[in-house]
């Protein structure tokens, strides 16, 4: 085996790449150690900086090498082979880069490096430089190890992106790869076509920058605990935290927009585990940011700022574990392949939980106790097994000791917060955010819980999440609306209520005026009483939130935009909630089919008739529209199903409105996947996707003998023949010569019938079947309108009656080609998207202002 000499393998560049991987790991480790030592003694600081810079260069080196390999199609490398090919458009090269797990880890590592370098510059020579960068370096050690691809005994550490195809476990025993000249025969597999869109280019880098940015508050919090400097870091971390809120928020919403535009979830949010696991860290980082604001303005909230900053990052790690270990199995539409790193991921999550808890226990004796218990449990697991029980005991110990340490040792405020103070209610709001994130985490973790406890619970359906989130969101809306009008420390309650009364009254009137017709009079979706109450409450309170924040911005802040970042972001958030509420609760199934019996014994879930059968040529009523399926087109691997929409205008004549072309992608990697098509209006979206369609194009096969039995028509010029998809008028009859000429010369007489076919959409096609007499023999020449599948034969002239006889046969597929489609109307979904933009702008303004304050 070893004797084979392979031709054309470019081994050197891979070794260079892997060299960078090892360098990045070693340098990160050195940086960690030297920052750790520099934390006590500044002499090593320069070396530590150098090590971190070396690590950064190595990471950039890995990326550059991988890019060179992708750009030049070095298919002998597994990563290049797996994720790219020659035919692919070069604009998707970035998507290839992070399609694979190794690439996405690399992206994360890269952002950490960028943030680390910026932080290093910002903190240079301050007391925070060494400890914060120490944590950064530690995280980088772990991330860099994910790319190592080294075996220690039977354990594989990381997955090396610079592995040759013939070295890879999935490929090494393939005979072709034993051929010395295999390189020249390789064609890459290419990027998954489902990911060939601009979302794949912008969504992952944004989301990973978001994930990456949660490391900053985490690093500060851990560094502060380590150095017992509980008071001062929040001020520096605050703009970073809201930067994280901004970027992670945009990343999540981009994911929602992608799902809505290009995936057939049937909405913008499906409570999919992958979506949840990016939402949950965001909720916690928002809570962390708000407690930091309390700390900055009034002091205190020491434990919560630490706890929330740490939790947010730990949840990012937990998400990574959830989505990349294969534990979710059947619970997610996102398919991540298991790279065999589950053990490693679990180990990393547990290590960081351990470090965090050990540092939160700010008492030496407690720390020692915790470390000893942890080590004992670890050894016991090694010796005796019982992994789950040990993990449970360890988890309980961690929580118990943390609570104990908080009560006993953590520095706390002496006086109790005033009820009418901003900090108290901001704190309550943060805790609500934490609580919702815990509930979502719990629901999302059902497959993990099943694994741990051997239960067989199914993951909750989206409506379960929605119903749970409703009351919390109502409370949050009220808090976000009202809390700004409270001052720090103490506020006069009477003034506060007076100030808010008008806004509240307006919101209530407006809310009821909208909700009564929306939900009570016109309860089309058969909403339950629980939901009716909470929809109304949420509608009203989110309006209250919008109005109160506008009020605060305009009156209290005198319309100064610079100062109003928070208010603007809050308006955006409330609009997102309002848009989500209206578009989800008033979602209309346009394609409801009425042909069915109700299955009352099964419950309402089964009554949801949401598909419509559209046959080519038919025009059917669907909701307020008339729809006609025009036929399919094939573009590459996509089948586009063109569906035209009409509305009844004056005189009940259908008037053309728009055409939607939902498609089905015949994806060689994943099979057939539908992609929706949506018509956007200012106040509503019409969203459609094909759930079932005949995919074969059937061109040659049906053309030859795919016609139905012919029907004969006798008629005159001006008469109409009725086809299933058009009206055919006999426009004129023309001959190439007169009858006398024909009789005189005994040559060929050609009589042409000009047939004008008018479709229901007023499109016009012509057919010219010919009636040919040659040497007294009649030879009809047929003509077809292939677009409509109509075939005409002009075979008889009756001179006495002055009539002609024409047969019509229709293509079988005229009756056979059909699609089954779902169509929904999302009312006012634009409120949601506008809210997203407003929230992003508001958060951006707030980050900028906080940075300015920090600099002065």
């Amino acid at each position, binding site marked *: 085996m070893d004797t084979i000499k392979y031709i054309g393998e470019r081994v050197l560049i891979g070794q260079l790449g892997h060299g960078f991987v090892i360098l990045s790991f070693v340098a990160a480790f050195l940086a960690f150690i030297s920052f750790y030592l520099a934390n006590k003694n500044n002499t090593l600081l320069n070396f530590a900086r150098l090590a971190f810079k070396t690590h950064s260069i190595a990471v950039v080196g890995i990326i550059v090498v991988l890019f060179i390999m992708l750009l030049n199609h070095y298919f002998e490398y597994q990563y290049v082979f797996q994720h790219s090919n020659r035919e692919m458009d070069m604009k998707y090269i970035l998507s290839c880069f992070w399609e694979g797990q190794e690439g996405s880890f690399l992206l994360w590592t890269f952002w950490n490096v960028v943030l680390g370098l910026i932080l290093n510059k910002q903190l240079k020579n301050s007391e925070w430089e060494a400890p914060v960068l120490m944590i950064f370096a530690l995280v980088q050690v772990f991330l860099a190890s994910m790319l190592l691809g080294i075996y220690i005994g039977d354990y594989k550490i990381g997955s090396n992106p610079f592995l040759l195809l013939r070295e890879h476990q999935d490929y090494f025993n393939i005979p072709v790869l034993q051929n010395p000249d295999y390189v020249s025969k390789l064609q890459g597999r290419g990027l998954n076509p489902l990911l060939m869109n601009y979302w794949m280019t912008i969504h992952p880098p944004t989301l990973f920058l978001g994930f990456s940015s949660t490391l900053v508050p985490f690093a500060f919090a851990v560094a502060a605990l380590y150095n017992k400097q509980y008071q001062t870091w929040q001020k520096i971390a605050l703009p970073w935290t809201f930067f994280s809120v901004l970027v992670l928020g945009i990343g999540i919403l981009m994911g929602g927009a992608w799902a809505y535009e290009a995936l057939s979830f049937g909405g913008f949010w499906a409570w999919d585990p992958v979506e949840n696991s990016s939402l949950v860290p965001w909720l916690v980082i928002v809570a962390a940011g708000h407690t930091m604001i309390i700390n900055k303005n009034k002091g205190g909230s020491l434990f919560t700022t630490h706890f929330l900053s740490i939790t947010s990052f730990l949840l990012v790690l937990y998400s990574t574990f959830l989505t990349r270990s294969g534990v979710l199995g059947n619970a997610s539409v996102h398919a991540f392949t298991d790279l065999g790193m589950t053990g490693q991921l679990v180990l990393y999550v547990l290590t960081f939980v351990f470090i965090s808890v050990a540092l939160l226990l700010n008492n030496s004796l407690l720390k020692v106790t915790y470390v000893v218990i942890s080590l004992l449990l670890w050894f016991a697991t090694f010796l005796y097994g019982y992994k789950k029980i040990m993990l449970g005991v360890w988890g309980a110990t961690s929580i118990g000791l943390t609570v104990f340490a908080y009560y006993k040792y953590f520095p706390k405020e002496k006086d109790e917060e005033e009820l009418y103070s901003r900090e108290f209610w901001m704190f309550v709001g943060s805790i609500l955010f934490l609580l919702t994130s815990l509930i979502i985490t719990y629901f999302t973790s059902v497959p993990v819980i099943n694994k741990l406890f051997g239960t067989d619970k199914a993951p909750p359906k989206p409506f379960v999440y929605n119903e749970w989130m409703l009351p919390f969101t109502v409370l949050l809306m009220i808090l976000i609306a009202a809390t700004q009008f409270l001052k720090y420390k103490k506020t006069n309650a009477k003034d506060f209520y007076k100030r808010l009364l008008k806004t509240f009254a307006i919101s209530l009137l407006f809310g009821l005026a909208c909700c009564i017709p929306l939900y009570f009079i016109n309860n089309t979706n058969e909403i339950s009483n629980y939901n009716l109450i909470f929809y109304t409450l949420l509608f009203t309170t989110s309006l209250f939130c919008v109005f109160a924040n506008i009020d605060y911005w305009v009156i209290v802040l005198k319309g100064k935009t610079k100062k109003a970042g928070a208010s603007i972001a809050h308006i955006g958030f409330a609009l997102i909630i309002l848009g989500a509420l209206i578009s989800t609760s008033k979602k209309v199934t346009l394609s409801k089919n009425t042909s069915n019996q109700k299955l009352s014994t099964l419950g309402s879930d089964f009554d949801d008739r949401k598909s419509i059968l559209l046959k080519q040529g038919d025009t059917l009523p669907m909701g307020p529209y008339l729809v006609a399926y025009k036929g399919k087109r094939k573009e590459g691997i996509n089948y586009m199903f063109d569906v035209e929409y009409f509305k009844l205008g004056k005189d009940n004549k259908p008037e053309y409105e728009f055409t939607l072309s939902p498609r089905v992608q015949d994806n060689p990697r*994943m099979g057939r996947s539908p992609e929706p098509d949506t018509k956007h209006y200012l106040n509503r979206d019409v969203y459609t996707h094909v759930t079932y369609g005949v995919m074969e194009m059937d061109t040659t096969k049906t053309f030859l003998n795919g016609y139905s039995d012919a029907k004969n028509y006798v008629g005159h010029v001006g008469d109409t023949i009725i086809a299933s998809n058009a009206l055919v008028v006999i426009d004129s009859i023309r001959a190439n010569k007169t009858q006398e000429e024909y009789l005189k010369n005994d040559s060929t007489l050609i009589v042409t019938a000009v047939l004008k076919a008018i479709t229901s959409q007023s499109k016009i096609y012509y057919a010219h079947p010919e009636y040919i007499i040659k040497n007294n023999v009649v030879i009809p020449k047929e003509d077809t309108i292939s677009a409509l599948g109509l075939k005409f034969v002009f075979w008889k002239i009756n001179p006495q009656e002055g009539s002609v006889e024409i047969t019509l046969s229709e293509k079988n597929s005229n009756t056979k080609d059909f699609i089954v489609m779902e169509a929904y109307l999302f009312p006012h979904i634009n409120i949601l998207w506008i809210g997203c933009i407003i929230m992003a702008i508001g958060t951006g303004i707030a980050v900028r202002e906080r940075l300015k304050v920090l600099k002065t």
Partner: protein
Amino acid sequence: MKKLHIIGLLIIAIAIGVIFISLNNTSSYADFSKAASSPEDEFHVVGKLDKTQPQIYDPQVNPDEFTFSMTDNKGLTKQVVLHKSKPQDFEKSEQIVLIGKMQSDVFHANDILMKCPSKYNEAQNQVN
């Protein structure tokens, strides 16, 4: 008692409430015979498509009804009525998860999840 303590207690109460309610309310994974024993409850049943039995999908009659047979992990085969349109690539599915209720010996599903064979393992074909 501090106000914050009240909040803390409330949180714990809600957390316990969530766990308790969700333990009672969510459906669980089961096989056909367990699903048959409580026809009012919703179950997730995992199994494989029985390719020997006919698959009936006539969208002319009802585009939201697709009938087939599935063998659950215990080896029991039952007729399934999926109250949705026939999923694309249905024949290729390796494993099926049905969500629904078992009533009078027929499993009525309102949703279906399919695992299609991972093409990652088809390395051989890809290289050639």
